[in-house]
């Protein structure tokens, strides 16, 4: 079957697509994934996942199982599982969902209600996150956007050099002294490489330390 141009969506029997020049006004309900590349005004009621592509605009009261917002959503969003606003996503409205993921770069105005927080079970982050087979994210825009955010957030480029540094731990845990030495080695790295203002240095170093400790466990 045909694929939607520019976005890696491959049609399957259980996916509904609202193309980028299409506008739907009214109530939309169903039991399958919905990709919105165009515009929907009104109400959306789904038992599955709503994916608002970067070109998509949804001005609606939305009730779904999962929602992934890479476009624009104006209205309240209620999900029985999760809501994710990606870095291209923009949303104004209130979110009611047990899991809400808002990534760096996303813009959001409204309130978040995750329900009964006190009695919530502990869960691993990023475990069985709703990922449709295809990501509704075109290849081009991130590359095009990259130059703009880079100077604004000096913290982001630094982590990569730190990643490979911790050597694979042998079966026996190393003595605590060795651990300290290695951590220092890692800390030495970034200051030489980076030409950032001192204020910006603190963050990546802390992040690296945390990462090393986590790996040891």
């Amino acid at each position: 079957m045909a694929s939607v141009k520019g976005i890696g969506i491959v049609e399957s029997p259980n996916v509904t697509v609202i193309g980028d020049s299409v506008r739907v006004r009214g109530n939309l309900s169903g039991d399958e994934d919905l990709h919105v590349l165009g515009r929907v005004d009104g109400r959306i009621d789904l038992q599955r996942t709503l994916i608002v592509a970067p070109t998509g605009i949804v001005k609606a009261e939305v009730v779904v199982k999962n929602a992934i917002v890479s476009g624009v959503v104006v209205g309240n969003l209620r999900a029985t599982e999760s809501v994710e606003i990606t870095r291209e996503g923009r949303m104004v409205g209130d979110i009611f969902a047990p899991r809400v993921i808002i990534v760096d770069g996303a813009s959001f105005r409204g309130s978040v209600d995750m329900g009964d927080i006190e009695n919530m079970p502990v869960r691993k982050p990023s475990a069985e996150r709703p990922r449709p087979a295809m990501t509704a994210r075109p290849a081009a825009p991130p590359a095009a956007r990259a130059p703009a955010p880079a100077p604004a957030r000096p913290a982001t480029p630094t982590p990569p050099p730190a990643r490979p540094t911790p050597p694979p731990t042998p079966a026996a845990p190393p003595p605590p002294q060795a651990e300290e030495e290695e951590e220092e080695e890692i800390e030495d790295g970034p200051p030489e490489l980076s030409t950032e203002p001192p204020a910006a240095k603190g963050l990546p170093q802390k992040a690296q330390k945390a990462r090393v400790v986590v790996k040891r466990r």
Partner: protein
Amino acid sequence: MANTVIGNTIVIDGEITGDEDLTIRGTVKGRISLSASLIVENSGVVEADIETKHVEVSGNVTGNITAIEKVELKADGRMVGDIKAPRILIADGAVFKGNVDMER
């Protein structure tokens, strides 16, 4: 141009407008206005007034169709309503009740 598909389980009550082909496998009630082709597949149910360039009906349509180019009722198609289009094709097996207007 992207393809718009309304899947089997989807029900839309309202209005659809656009400039691209639309395939309906689910249910649409209200109004459809397109500058491209509308395809109502076997499982599709449309209760709407339709204005498009070209319509292909293999499912169920209730409402009036106005097409700039052509309306095709396929063998599996069932349609109740009036059709206005310069070219109208009704296949053997199709069910149709309504007026036909082929005036340009």
